[in-house]
């Protein structure tokens, strides 16, 4: 058939793709021989590529990582903004500051996560494989303990605690103010010690294959006893919310992978507990131990100073307010904070690698670059935290009460009748928790693990929804706590007691999954947003402190997942019983 026409696509195609053909023989270098006639090892020279190729190389690399963080931040921010504009009919104050702050959060997290992958994770993996081979158990335990402290300082969300400290009213909650301001460094250190102890215990648990249930019971006894003691004292009771929130803050994107990499490496090298469950449990302990640690620190602070002394000191400090040096003013604070978060962790890892294990550092150039990215990302993230997330969360939190109560800065408030307004506020909190959790990528990974563990009887989506509903309800109850000024102990103590009963009834697998799911849900975007929202909410309503929402958000999913597990088990048992009856009838 003679061809009379050419498709246009084929024509342009011919124009765009030039075919060339060369012999590969002409491109390779000739082998070099030394005097003895041996082949010299060939060292390829470095490659310099033109600007166009640099662009084409970096574009997909950057856009994938950028979009990952955009997906984490933008929907949440949009939800807050739309809620504020459509339901509360208030415009966002300082939109440009918040926008650039959110952009800084996205860029900072992107750099930080990439730096973590390139710079810190290789260390963790190498430690996990080399440490059990070369050291004894006591050394391993010590290293794990110190690493637990180091990763806590490096956790991005921990900065949110310090930001929150400036919002506390000293005359009404002196101990809380003292902990978050004068003692803030000690506070983080104490939380770190809690995480370190938890990591140690979790690792030993891996090695000997201990069950998690008795560990939870043993840990919860001091938690509840001290919490009960502090709840009786009205001054100390105000710190309880902070103490329980600290547990939720610690388990973020640095702690979980680094500690897990180490723990699993150790378990595989020397332990017998290498079943499908190894890896679980550390997160649970790492969110319970810091609670005890912070409560003990509070008791210590209380024994050292009196509320009156703290108030006096704070008033003296405000009176003698000097021009802050660059290290106290933004952005100096953020830069120092970023460096202080990463450098000790890196120094510690280096000392262990080179001093203790005598291992060579692989790819020192890329690791140095990764660490640089980590620090840079942390600094930018901290800036975004102050100007974007905390500001937006605080603003929304302080405006939501306008739905049901009268606020001086909002016209026509209350905007809705009391019942409807309260309902709107709780629905807002519930949806925020539900949506933020459902979008958390770590939870998706946990869901797949659970589905495999239970041979499909506990579906991935079931877990996703159970945890998200748990977090949503937890946050809504936390908001209710602020609105009605319910003492946090009245919510937490029964909550944990209920969790203990459910734990007793559940099988080991579900206990592991349920208690870990609480730690997985609180990422670096959710934590600052929820913290700031709670504080803003509390400030507007004139309640003493706005902490405790996060702690409700971590007990919520535990109870939700445990009950779902029990329900599924009963359903299966009933089905089996039904089958048996059919057989025998």
């Amino acid at each position, binding site marked *: 058939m003679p061809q009379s026409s050419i498709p246009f696509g084929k024509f342009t195609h011919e124009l765009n793709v030039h075919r060339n053909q060369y012999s590969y023989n002409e491109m390779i270098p000739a082998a070099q021989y030394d005097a003895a006639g041996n082949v010299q090892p060939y060292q390829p020279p470095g490659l310099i590529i033109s600007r166009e190729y*640099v662009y084409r190389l*970096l574009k997909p690399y950057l856009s994938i990582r950028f979009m990952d963080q955009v997906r984490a931040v933008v929907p949440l921010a949009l939800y807050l903004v739309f809620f504020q504009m459509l339901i509360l009919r208030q415009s966002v104050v300082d939109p440009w500051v918040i926008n650039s702050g959110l952009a800084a959060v996205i860029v900072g997290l992107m750099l930080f996560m990439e730096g973590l992958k390139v710079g810190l994770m290789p260390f963790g993996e190498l430690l996990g494989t080399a440490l059990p081979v070369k050291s004894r158990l006591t050394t391993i335990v010590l290293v794990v303990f110190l690493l637990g402290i180091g990763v806590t300082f490096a956790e991005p969300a921990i900065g949110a605690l310090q930001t929150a400290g400036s919002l506390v009213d000293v005359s009404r909650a002196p101990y809380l103010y003292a902990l978050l301001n004068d003692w803030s460094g000690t506070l983080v250190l104490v939380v770190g010690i809690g995480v370190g102890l938890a990591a140690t215990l979790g690792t030993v648990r891996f090695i000997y294959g201990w069950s998690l249930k008795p560990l939870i019971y043993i840990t919860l006894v001091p938690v509840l006893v001290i919490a009960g003691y502090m709840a009786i004292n009205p001054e100390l009771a105000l710190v309880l919310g902070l103490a329980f929130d600290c547990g939720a803050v610690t388990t973020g994107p640095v702690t979980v992978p680094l500690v897990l990499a180490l723990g699993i490496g150790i378990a595989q090298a020397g332990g017998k507990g290498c079943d499908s469950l190894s890896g679980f449990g550390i997160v649970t302990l790492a969110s319970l131990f810091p609670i005890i640690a912070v409560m003990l620190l509070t008791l210590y602070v209380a024994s050292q100073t009196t509320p009156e002394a703290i108030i006096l000191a704070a008033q003296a400090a405000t009176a003698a307010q000097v021009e802050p040096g660059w290290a106290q003013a933004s952005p100096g604070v953020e830069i120092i904070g970023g460096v202080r978060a990463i450098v000790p962790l890196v120094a510690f890892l280096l000392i262990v690698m080179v001093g203790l294990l005598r291992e060579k550092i692989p790819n020192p150039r*890329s690791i140095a670059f990764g660490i640089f990215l980590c620090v840079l990302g942390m600094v930018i993230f901290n800036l975004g935290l102050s100007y974007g997330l905390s500001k937006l969360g605080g603003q929304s939190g302080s405006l939501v009460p306008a739905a049901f109560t009268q606020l001086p800065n909002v016209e026509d408030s209350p905007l809705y009748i009391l019942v409807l307004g309260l309902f709107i506020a709780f629905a807002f909190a519930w949806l925020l928790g539900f949506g933020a959790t459902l979008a958390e990528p770590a939870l998706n990974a946990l869901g797949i693990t659970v589905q495999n563990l239970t041979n499909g009887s506990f579906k991935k989506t079931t877990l996703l929804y159970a945890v998200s509903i748990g977090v949503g309800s937890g946050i809504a109850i936390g908001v209710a706590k602020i609105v009605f000024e319910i003492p946090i102990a009245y919510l937490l103590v029964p909550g944990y007691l209920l969790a203990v009963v459910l734990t007793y009834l559940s099988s080991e697998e579900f206990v592991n999954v349920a208690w870990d799911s609480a730690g997985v849900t609180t990422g670096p975007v959710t934590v600052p947003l929820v913290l700031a929202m709670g504080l803003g909410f509390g400030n507007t309503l004139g309640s003493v402190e706005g902490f405790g929402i996060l702690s409700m958000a971590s007990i919520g999913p535990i109870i939700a997942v445990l009950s779902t597990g029990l329900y599924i088990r009963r359903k299966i048992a009933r089905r089996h019983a039904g089958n048996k009856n059919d057989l025998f009838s």
Partner: protein
Amino acid sequence: MSSRDFTVLVDVSMITCIVQRGKANEVVQAAQDAGAQGATIYYGYGSGVRERLGLLGLAVDVNKEIITTLVADNQVELVMERMYCVGELDVPGGGMIYVTKLEKAATYIPEEIVNRITSKGAA
């Protein structure tokens, strides 16, 4: 026992394409659009240009996806070119593609195709 046909295909080439992790599905789609029937993807890791790029090498993923697909000799040029363009193999560290001439291959062949070819051959 029924008798079974064993049909052997000749004039077959195998295209193997190595791309950065996460890109294989796009490349397979391009190959299928150009007429390839299917593809197999497996995972691996490798080195090469990445080590020579210095810090820019960090943008190249060590983890790779390896795609193999069997195509007719007449298709090779078009499929290979489409996979090359979609896989962006002209970017440093992007990967590589090569063709291996196969002696013979055998797989399931839809009945109507066999009938069409045999009737054509008989005519």
